[in-house]
């Protein structure tokens, strides 16, 4: 971590990939000193000089020396400015922050990834890590729901995962015309089709909160206990280190005790509107 937790380190954009019409992935390399290697599930604060900063999950593989990779949609001033950066331009990075997906804890178990929309990006490092050590896990499934066929992220990588014979990949979209050959429907409806033993499965869920609420209900119906369901929360974050209170979620700070949280620890407040 930076010596001063508020001081970003300079990173240079080395590649930009337009994933969909409004979602881009940036590869970043440090100009000088680098932040520590992020673990799957962690995020960094990306700072566009003169505009502001925004928390974005790491979406690349946790490989030493590999570029820092972030996938994001431009929705606010800072995120829009980031998606407009081009190779050679610089931005500030501080972090990594937050908790991690239970990739190590899942060894020996079936693993079920459930991603919704842009939620595939924070899950991708965990998927990559599990698949890179495939022999350590039981059955592995990735269920991915998104808005339309045009909004599917990481198409080539998904196709590669599909070609692996020991991974179940199911993709569904909310809306499509008849030219789409895949499933149409919501991602929780894929859960009964996934191959896993509820008595020995760890589920990692990431997506819009409403999608996660429906997904948790479907996982519960499938027999998965709350303590083996992990969700990644999104809240307005500013400091990233549990000081400012912007991301307070009950007794926790999402930036520090999250963003990845074990569901049984937040179940009582997950649907409380005021929180």
């Amino acid at each position: 971590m930076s010596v001063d937790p508020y001081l970003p380190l300079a990173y240079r954009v080395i590649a930009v990939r337009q994933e969909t019409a409004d979602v881009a992935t940036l590869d970043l390399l440090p100009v000088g000193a680098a932040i520590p290697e992020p673990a799957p599930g962690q995020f960094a604060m990306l700072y566009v000089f003169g505009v502001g900063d925004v928390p974005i999950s790491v979406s690349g593989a946790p490989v030493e020396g590999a570029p820092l990779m972030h996938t994001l949609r431009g929705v606010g001033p800072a995120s829009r400015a980031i998606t407009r950066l081009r190779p050679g331009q610089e931005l500030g990075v501080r972090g990594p922050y937050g908790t991690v997906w239970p990739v190590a804890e899942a060894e020996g178990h079936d693993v079920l990834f459930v991603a919704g929309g842009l939620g595939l990006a924070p899950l991708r490092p965990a998927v990559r890590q599990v698949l890179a050590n495939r022999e350590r896990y039981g059955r592995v499934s990735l269920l991915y729901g998104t808005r339309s066929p045009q909004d599917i992220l990481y198409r080539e990588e998904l196709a590669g995962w599909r070609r692996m014979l020991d991974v179940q990949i199911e993709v569904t979209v909310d809306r499509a015309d008849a030219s789409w050959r895949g499933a149409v429907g919501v991602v929780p409806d894929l859960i009964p089709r996934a191959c896993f033993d509820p008595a020995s499965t760890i589920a990692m869920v990431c997506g819009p909160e409403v999608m996660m609420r429906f997904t948790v209900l479907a996982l519960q119906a499938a027999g998965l206990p709350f303590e083996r369901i992990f969700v990644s929360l999104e809240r307005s974050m500013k400091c990233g280190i549990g000081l400012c209170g912007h991301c307070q979620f009950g007794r926790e700070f999402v930036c520090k005790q999250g963003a990845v949280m074990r569901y049984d620890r937040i179940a009582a407040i997950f649907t409380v509107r005021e929180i």
Partner: protein
Amino acid sequence: METLESTVLAQPFFAGLDPGIAALIADCARNHSFELGAYLFREGDEAREFFMLREGDVALEIQAPGRPTLVLSTTQAGDIVGASWLVPPYRWNSDARARSRVRALGFDAACLRAKCDEDPRTGYAMMKRFAPLLVHRLHAAHLQLLDVYGRTAPA
């Protein structure tokens, strides 16, 4: 030997069904197969049957002038296709098209409604299975309508 009754009882949708009721329901069932692209039913037609898919995929579709055919949802083996047979005026409100070769059990709606009217136990057993299905599909439709993957407010 596989009979319609044993086939009905083997479907998860009918899990736990009293064998006597399964026999009544099986009296209203017949086997179907549909080739790729064939329609199980068309919007506006009388809902004479509902289907339980044994093999293959079906898309529920709707036509809108000047737009490509829209897919409302897709169903797979084990799923039920069609609920309009339950509710007057018993007309389909979408098309159902086979997206692969499909094998299905078809249940005659008039036959089944008559048996449900004659025997409330049968009617209750069917409602206990269809009500959760309808609620589930309503929730799924709500989630689709929410467009949760769309652009969110800036942070």
